[in-house]
């Protein structure tokens, strides 16, 4: 029983680690692509910097919030798992 409980916590930490890794990977690529396109657009037409910046700001805010969500879920899995107490009790027996 103890081994099963321990496995549960190991799975939680592994899931948190992989979750934030995948999120950071995806958000990094997305932000990079967005920024690349914006810089290229501004380089071609410097007068459009205002327009591009507004669109980029909204896009980056959306992408960044996805990464923050993943961080929150990862931290919940590690530090504030809803079933942690029940599993700990099980582990104590």
């Amino acid at each position: 029983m103890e081994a099963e409980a321990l496995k549960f916590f190991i799975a939680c930490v592994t899931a948190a680690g992989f979750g934030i890794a995948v999120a950071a990977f995806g958000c990094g690529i997305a932000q990079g692509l967005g920024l690349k396109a914006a810089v290229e657009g501004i380089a071609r037409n410097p007068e459009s910097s205002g327009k591009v910046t507004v669109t980029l700001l909204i896009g980056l805010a959306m992408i960044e919030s996805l990464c923050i969500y993943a961080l929150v879920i990862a931290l919940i899995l590690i530090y504030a798992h809803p079933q942690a107490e029940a599993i700990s009790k099980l582990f104590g027996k």
Partner: protein
Amino acid sequence: MAADLDKTEIQQRILTFVTWANWLLFAGASVAGLLIATPEMVIGIVCGGLIVTVNFHLLSRTLKKSLAPPCIQSHNIILAKYYLRFTVSGVIIFILIAGHFVHPLGLFIGLSVVVASIMMATVREITKLLFFKEAM
């Protein structure tokens, strides 16, 4: 040319709407939380809302300083500011969750303020465009 002007106007309108809607949604969610939720949930909503709203404004300032000519800031300063902002947000969220100061659901609701306001702005503009086209 006219289409370009129209697009600029729409983008500026979305940004203004999002900027105001952030604070309004944050205030609304906090008041609603105070009325119907537990104190941990309220702290979660307030902290999450403040984190993303302040983050959004800082991101806006950084982008304007880094991409809008004529006075463009140094790349190093921009990178340092970006990482500092992200690290501070991460540390605050870590302390809040690891110390069990907030309810995770409340924090999640608070962190969704910016996304919700961007969605609202998009729906508003789409509705306007649809009605405008129909009127034409």
